[in-house]
């Protein structure tokens, strides 16, 4: 304990943050144990996702300046707990309700934008998800069910802060209060459980299923295009990083929307990549110095990673989502191909932003590369672990 304190070596954060951190850790533990039974049930894919989230939190703490580490650890534990709860609560309406306090908890941390500005996205997501779910289950005309299906699909998109529900990005905003908290950390948990919740008990009529699928695929393609072009063309580097998340999310949404085995597997791997690779890289990009004139090979390999090329995490996602799209209707693959080819363009820029990391950053980068390699080379094992 003393060694831990010595490592953190920082003033004690507010008691409520310590408490929240402890609560987050406890919630994570409860969700992992499935206690109380029936109320909290963590599906296998979410367990793997949680296993990928822990290193991301650790990296965030590790990269933080010494003075902020304990605070970051507490915030990370709260995030971990929230992620576990969102993934474990079987009732989607309860999930929607819980999104509200989680959204406020994230928005309440000090930041440049006001609390109300930061909480709008999660609040809208919660409302869309909750109302959509309620309409899906309520008796009434068919259009009401379709409206509910739309609400659920848009709710997922809004939770991730994706197009068309993008939130404002500001340079220098702390990671835990920026878009990263939702797009890169909390939303993947929901994205993985949502299809299972929807498919369990066959709640959706074919009509409603078509609406959910079409909205997810359509918005997935939109996010792909937006992310691929935006990350390449936008002036702000922070926005470029956010847009690069949109590319991963685009693949994931399309995979989810296809309601097909390979598509779900692609979404699962894409979410793991977001948590295990993209988010840590975005965190590293905040601390790494700008690229020098002669980049080191490690930084050059990053371009390959960010472009989604083999042998890194992007390749199996692309293979699976292409397979799913081609099985359903081959023209769906065309926007996917265009986005895959365009990813090569923005990868150069993002990698340059990571520069030539040294010391602590270089070690972190090596770890991320290793994680990405595992995801890229043996996705079968991870699919087995996730039961997909």
């Amino acid at each position: 304990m003393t060694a831990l304190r010595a490592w953190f070596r920082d003033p004690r954060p507010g008691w409520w943050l310590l408490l929240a951190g402890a609560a987050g850790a406890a919630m994570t533990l409860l969700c992992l144990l499935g206690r109380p039974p029936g109320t909290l049930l963590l599906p296998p894919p979410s367990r793997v996702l949680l296993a990928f989230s822990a290193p991301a939190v650790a990296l965030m703490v590790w990269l933080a300046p010494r003075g902020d580490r304990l605070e970051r650890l507490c915030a990370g534990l709260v995030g971990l707990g929230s992620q576990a709860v969102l993934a474990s609560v079987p009732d989607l309406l309860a999930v929607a309700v819980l999104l509200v306090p989680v959204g406020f908890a994230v928005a309440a941390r000090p930041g440049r934008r006001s609390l109300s500005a930061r909480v709008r996205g999660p609040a809208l997501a919660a409302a869309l998800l909750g109302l959509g779910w309620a309409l899906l289950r309520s008796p009434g005309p068919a259009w009401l069910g379709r409206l509910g299906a739309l609400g659920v699909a848009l709710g997922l998109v809004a939770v991730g802060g994706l197009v068309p529900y993008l939130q404002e990005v500001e340079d220098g905003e702390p990671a835990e209060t920026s878009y990263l908290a939702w797009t890169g950390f909390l939303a993947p948990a929901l994205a993985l459980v949502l299809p299972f919740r929807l498919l369990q008990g066959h709640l959706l009529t074919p009509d409603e299923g078509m609406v959910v699928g079409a909205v997810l695929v359509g918005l997935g393609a939109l996010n792909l295009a937006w992310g691929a072009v935006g990350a390449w063309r936008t002036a702000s580097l922070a926005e470029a990083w956010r847009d690069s998340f949109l590319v991963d999310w685009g693949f994931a949404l399309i995979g989810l929307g296809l309601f097909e085995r390979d598509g779900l597997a692609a979404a699962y791997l894409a979410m793991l990549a977001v948590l295990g690779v993209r988010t840590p890289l975005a965190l590293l990009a905040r601390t790494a110095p700008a690229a020098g004139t002669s980049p080191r090979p490690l930084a050059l390999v990053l371009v390959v990673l960010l472009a989604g090329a083999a042998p890194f995490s992007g390749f199996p996602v692309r293979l699976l989502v292409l397979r799913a799209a081609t099985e359903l209707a081959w023209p769906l693959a065309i926007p996917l191909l265009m986005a895959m080819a365009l990813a090569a363009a923005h990868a150069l820029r993002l990698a340059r932003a990571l520069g030539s990391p040294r010391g602590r950053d270089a070690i972190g980068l090596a770890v991320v590369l290793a994680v990405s390699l595992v995801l890229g080379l043996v996705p079968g094992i991870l699919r087995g672990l996730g039961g997909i």
Partner: protein
Amino acid sequence: MSLAAMLVPPALLAAAAILSWSLGHTGVGAGRVVCAPAAWLAAGVEAVAWWWGGRVPLELSLPFGLAGAPLGVKLDSSIFALQMITLLALALLFTFQPRDPGRAALASLVGGVALGTLAASSLSLTAFGLSVCSGLVWTALAWDERTEVGATWGALSLAWVLLLWAAVVLEVVGGTSVYSAVPVTALQAPVFLLLAAAALLCAGALPWRTWVSLVWRRARPASGSLAVAVLVPLGFSLLLRAYALGAGQWPGGWLHPLLAGLGAATALAAAGRAQAAGSVRAVRAEAVPLGAGLTLLGLALGTPLGVAAAVLSLGGLGLVAGLVPLLPEGGLVASLGDALAFGAPPALVFGGWLLCVQAALEAGPVTGLMGLVGVFAWSVGLAAVARATWLPAPAARSGSPVGLAVGAGLLLAAGVGLGGLASLVAAPVASDLAPPGSHGAAVSYLGGGAVGVTVPSGSWPAGALGGAVAIVGVVLLAIVGLLRRPGREPIRPLSGVEGEPARARRSVSALEVKPLIEPPWRDLRDRLATRLRGLRVPSQYRSLVRPNAVAAAATRGRPWFWALVTLALALVVTR
């Protein structure tokens, strides 16, 4: 033994990469010392094991997958030929091009991955390998310098993405992308076109300036030559695989003339660029595209002779990829090297191109005309070599005399031994991939032996006459070297009768040396780009079309925008 031929060469290169990298980190700069022998040894092991193993095709499938693709490797006559071509080019480059340990390790790793990709047993695994190769090659290029890496990266990324889609379509239509298991009917024209597009992008065999030309114009050609040596055979291997997938045919007779015409156009365009180039390096940069065009011409014919000729021409390309970077910038030796690379007899390039054109002539009237275009390109290429001697030679590189001797020696030896190569390497590939019964067009007979090659339309006694020419040529050059008078301009003894100093001609600047033929479409791309840049939304519509305003509203998290989108979607789904 076939197993050794399949597994040992890539393993050797990978081990050399690790060793070189480790030595580099311990401060021992022994990259070349480790990687060059590994490449030669890998080539030796592959050749010996393949022949000793009785040249029996072998396929090895592993129970687990790699990156979502079934993991398996295979070795047959075509893979053996392509791997040997790659290995010989790599061995030349590793031996005679200076590289620090890190770069040598990366180059060796690229070689190992390329060999593995060539041996992949499924199209999805090939796409995976091509993707890895592209990434590593990009890393090697960008590590040296940033020029021309963007275009290369873009082309190669597009290539592997297209190939991935082709593999996926095959899996969806045929249930698998394993070459030996795909039903013949699964290879339909759209899949083939995807595969061909990937192959041509990868090999740079297109009628405009591709990455293959661009990477050789860089100040540091080492990584560029590595990329060419590895990726060009890899690209052509995809077209060879297409024959295997289609049981000796491509899906649709129209595809053969289409790609053959593309090959002829590629060769002609490359020759046109070469004769208009502004520097010796830019001329040499077109040697591989010119050869790639003629190789594609032969390969696309679909006849056994065409396939065999393409394999031999590809062999020439591989050696050229290894030789050209070792040439000095100017002088007689450089000109001779250029001439061999551009198809002067009796080198392997000449033999391969000769057979490609003859195969085109024999395949039918239309392809015969394409062959004539190929001969035009060949002739213009030779003219470009002559014109290159007028261009100013930067004193940047002196090349590697020993490497040049070894490379040129290999080219000449392979050219003289064309008959042997044809009967032992090329003919088996042709009989495996395009059996005589498999194609409706003229089926040519290719006779090979120590004397030379014989085909119905005309023979080339490479061993006898070519050997005689090689012997006499070498002897003559040796005599000239001995007899050269002191004070005479040493590297360019092409003065006129009046002894006009060559230096005076060398002072002609690149700008003064005009192209021999000025094609009207030379600056078409720039003109089109200017025209496109000039396009604007008409002023009266600018108030309606404001994408920037929409983008700004979308990215700033405006609630009214969210509400608008949600309402619109709600209206759409409830209608």
